[in-house]
């Protein structure tokens, strides 16, 4: 039986990608490391030996275009273009979660200051969190505590930002117990979870939060699987808040970083991701 050939699409190799390369090699796969910055995506005379591509680009723009190309050429992409398009935009993600009855913090999108003030009243008042509609690692998040701060922030966004910064995503601020949860769901299965501990209201590990193992109870498993199913088939890093009313899904990441999860839980997340790619490839080609 021939070996499964996986193309790992990237724009830089992080510790996560090195874990994936190692996991693929342990499983006897051929893994081809493809720096998308060096590619010419021209459909004329395209040929590929890949059974699947695994998109791991740190650049969302480059990653989504690369996925669009391979998928349009008939190559299985993990994650798919549909999934990437939902997850790369926080407003789109929130709408999908609401439409699938997944608990998520209240949110609104506006384009101007007057509508922002009105929306904040409807959300229950200050504080609120303003986020860029795309972006990651907790960057450019602002907790807005009052109207003065809101006015200043919106003026700066309008004057200094590009057009996409004029789409103002507002989210009701959620009090957290000094942590949130990152849970990895792969092919509909919960694989691992960590707490991200921080004294700061932003609990991304990229912003200094400390990772600790998290045991997954039935309610957490249920909401994570429901959120993943709402987005589609794939590999997800789901951010969950613990509230008095239960778990709520904050965001969903489609090129999830997992090396901290693997380090503190000892669970082979990279292996599970490669196994999933293999199963998708086999299913599509009936290998």
């Amino acid at each position, binding site marked *: 039986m021939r070996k499964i050939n996986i193309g790992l699409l*990237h*724009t*830089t*190799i*992080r510790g996560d*990608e*090195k874990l994936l*390369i190692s996991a693929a090699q342990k499983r006897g796969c051929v893994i081809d*490391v493809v*720096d998308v910055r060096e590619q010419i995506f021209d459909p004329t005379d395209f040929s590929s030996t890949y059974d699947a591509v695994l998109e791991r680009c*740190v*650049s*969302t*723009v480059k990653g989504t275009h690369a996925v669009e190309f391979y998928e349009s050429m008939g190559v299985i992409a993990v994650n798919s273009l549909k999934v990437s398009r939902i997850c790369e935009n926080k407003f789109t993600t929130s709408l999908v979660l609401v439409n699938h009855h997944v608990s998520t913090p209240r949110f609104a999108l506006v384009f101007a200051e007057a509508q922002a003030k009105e929306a904040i009243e409807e959300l229950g008042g200050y504080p609120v969190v303003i986020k*860029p509609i*795309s*972006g*990651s*690692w907790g*960057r450019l998040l602002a907790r807005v505590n009052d109207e003065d701060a809101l006015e200043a922030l919106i003026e700066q966004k309008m004057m200094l930002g590009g057009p996409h910064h004029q789409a103002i995503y507002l989210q009701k601020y959620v009090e957290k117990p000094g942590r949130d949860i990152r849970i990895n769901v792969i092919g509909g299965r919960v694989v691992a979870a960590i707490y991200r501990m921080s004294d700061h209201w932003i609990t991304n590990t990229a912003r200094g939060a400390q990772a600790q193992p998290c045991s997954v109870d039935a309610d957490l498993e249920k909401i994570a699987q429901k959120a993943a199913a709402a987005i589609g088939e794939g590999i997800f*890093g789901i951010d969950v808040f613990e509230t008095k009313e239960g778990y709520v899904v904050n965001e969903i*990441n*489609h*090129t*999830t*970083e997992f090396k901290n999860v693997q380090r503190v839980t000892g669970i082979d997340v990279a292996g599970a991701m490669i196994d999933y790619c293999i199963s998708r490839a086999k299913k599509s080609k009936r290998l």
Partner: protein
Amino acid sequence: MILMHTQCSICDARINVEESVEVAEIISCTECKNKLEVTGKSADTVTVKEAPKVEEDWGE
């Protein structure tokens, strides 16, 4: 752990790099602390250039 060598493209310091380093991986110069991207790898040396700055669409 086998070490390879490179020269920082910013401060010219000689840097030791682990053999397991991959092309396109980001490393730090031990002298000037700047981030460097590995651009090539041969038997006992690697080549580097200044790493790209974090851009707005970077993340997970």
